[in-house]
């Protein structure tokens, strides 16, 4: 049990390596069985980790016995274990879907998938910003290969942009780390949070530049307004399970902003307190606006879903910019909801485009789908959830978020923007639904069989939405505690440094 915090990283890594070796690499079927069983195990491990960190407090895993702030640590607190569990669930859904045939487009789909899961889990669990960079690179290089999986002109073009943009982002990340190490003298998040308060006056400007450069990098990963142009094309070009998995990638950026800008540059950082907030406010609101415009302008379902991801990023950023516990808690609830439902929508869009023959998922009159009812029901649930209609989870998430604005001056900006973005997505998605399911000409399309695996995958991801409402009480209680843990420096900073010293004795 002591080694539980490192398992979400080790398990996919070893699985990925094993899948490259002979007994497993020979047939795709062995890959599939092995990969699905490892992902199921990962879901169990993450759930156990979540429970243990919830009940016994934050768990720290000191790699190689080198104590923080000098060694590398993994920190499994409520927030990070929640994100790890979310990744495993989304990964399981995407992988089941891929097993129905999308993994045959090229070599080594499943090992790459595992390496990406490893990178994402590592980024969530690490307590050190240099390791955050390393895990970012691990997840990125796996995502480059996954994105181009299957090949084709469209994918290559999208991938060139995606790779170049992210490489520039990585350079900026390293510049920021260099500046922060040069001024603060540490890279451990908890230690930096302590040392940032003691900075001399002439070093504050430099540290501020470093902190804001980090915001640029995380904004790029999260698709914050001026840096979001890569997202719609990339997500629309990727194959469906990959796009579904990428739903967690923007959340890695959001998670990093949440970590760095509430723990290191949070309210207690003295002269450097809340440096990101004046930038985050307008950018978050404008991201919502541009997402709404994008949703209305999208010519096909995949682009619509990609733009819905941008709207969700904007919503989450607004919550982070509020910098209060209740808003963070609402953001965490919304994060679970939006990640799973956008994953499900990407899978559904693929299912629909396979059923409609040449028309794919474009909003044009096409032949009738043979299995329209089943897909239609799934699409209806997903649509209700994603635009935030009652009684499903999107509604609860947005309501919590809007409630959190109580008593703030910014309420005049937040309410209209979020609600109008919601209206825009409602219009866009209902247009999508009516065109795809109701407008058809000519006889029925070819009877394309649907693999039961695909249905199961979508059902797993969609089931999250009603479950999030039914178990809304315990889940919001948990997100409240997680948000409190993040904002309370005695828990998120002092306990870690203290804990390391206690272990030493």
């Amino acid at each position: 049990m002591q080694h539980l915090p490192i398992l979400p990283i080790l398990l996919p890594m070893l699985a990925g390596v094993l899948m490259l070796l002979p007994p497993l690499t020979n047939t795709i079927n062995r890959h599939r069985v092995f990969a699905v069983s490892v992902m199921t195990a990962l879901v169990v491990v993450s759930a156990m980790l979540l429970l243990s960190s919830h009940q016994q407090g934050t768990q720290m895993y000191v790699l190689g016995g080198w104590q923080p702030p000098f060694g590398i640590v993994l920190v499994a607190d409520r927030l990070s274990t929640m994100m790890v569990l979310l990744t495993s669930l989304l990964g399981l859904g995407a992988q089941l879907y891929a097993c129905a045939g999308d993994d045959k487009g090229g070599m080594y789909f499943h090992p790459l998938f595992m390496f990406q899961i490893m990178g994402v889990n590592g980024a969530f669990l690490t307590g050190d910003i240099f390791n955050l960079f390393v895990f970012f690179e691990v997840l990125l290089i796996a995502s480059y290969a996954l994105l181009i999986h299957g090949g084709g002109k469209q994918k290559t073009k999208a991938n060139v942009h995606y790779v170049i943009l992210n490489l520039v982002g990585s350079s900026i990340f390293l510049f920021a780390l260099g500046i922060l190490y040069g001024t603060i003298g540490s890279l451990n998040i908890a230690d930096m949070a302590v040392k940032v308060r003691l900075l001399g006056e002439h070093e504050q400007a430099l540290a501020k530049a470093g902190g804001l450069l980090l915001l640029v990098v995380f904004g790029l990963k999260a698709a914050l307004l001026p840096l979001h142009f890569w997202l719609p094309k990339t997500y629309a070009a990727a194959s469906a399970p990959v796009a579904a998995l990428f739903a967690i990638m923007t959340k890695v950026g959001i998670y990093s902003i949440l970590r760095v800008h509430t723990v290191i540059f949070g309210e207690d950082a003295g002269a450097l307190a809340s440096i990101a907030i004046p930038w985050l406010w307008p950018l978050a609101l404008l991201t919502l606006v541009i997402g709404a415009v994008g949703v209305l302008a999208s010519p096909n379902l995949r682009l619509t879903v990609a733009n819905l991801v941008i709207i969700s990023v904007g919503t989450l950023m607004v919550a982070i910019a509020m910098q209060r516990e209740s808003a963070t808690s609402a953001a965490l609830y919304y994060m679970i909801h939006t990640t799973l439902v956008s994953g499900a929508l990407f899978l559904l869009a693929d299912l629909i485009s396979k059923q409609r023959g040449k028309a794919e998922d474009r909003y044009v009159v096409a032949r009738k789908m043979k299995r329209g009812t089943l897909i239609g029901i799934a699409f209806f649930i997903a649509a209700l959830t994603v635009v935030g209609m009652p009684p499903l989870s999107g509604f609860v998430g947005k309501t919590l978020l809007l409630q959190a604005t109580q008593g703030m001056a910014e309420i005049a900006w937040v309410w209209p923007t979020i609600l109008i973005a919601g209206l825009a997505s409602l219009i866009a998605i209902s247009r999508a639904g009516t065109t795809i399911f109701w407008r058809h000409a000519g006889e029925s399309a070819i009877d394309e069989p649907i693999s039961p695996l695909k249905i199961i995958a979508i059902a797993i991801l969609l089931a999250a939405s009603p479950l999030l409402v039914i178990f809304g009480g315990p889940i919001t209680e948990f997100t409240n505690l997680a948000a409190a843990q993040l904002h309370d420096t005695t828990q998120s900073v002092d306990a870690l440094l203290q804990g390391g010293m206690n272990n030493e004795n």
Partner: protein
Amino acid sequence: MEAVYAFCVGMLTTCGLFLVLRGRTFTVVMGLTLLSYAVNLFLFASGRLKLDGAAVLGQSTDYSDPLPQALVLTAIVIGFAMTAFVVILAMRSRADQGNDHVDGQIPTRPNSITASSKRNS
């Protein structure tokens, strides 16, 4: 020493950024390489510049900060891997699209547009 060092890092970054903003994949890859050199040098300097300082214990009386050197080592490895990937991707893109422009098509020049519009009018 500091001034020369800073000038070198600044020059590399400027050239890197300029090349990254070009339209052809080859120049962009060159730019990314220059940027990663600049980043490595910059990270190296984040532990302060020092003459004759060993990073390994027991080698000298004067020590330099070993951490940036470990960071640079990691950054170099990652940088090489990424450069290798982007080179292969650029070749694949050249093969798939038929040209080496990052957008997949060579944009028409503004003066050729005006020439054709003049003809039309």
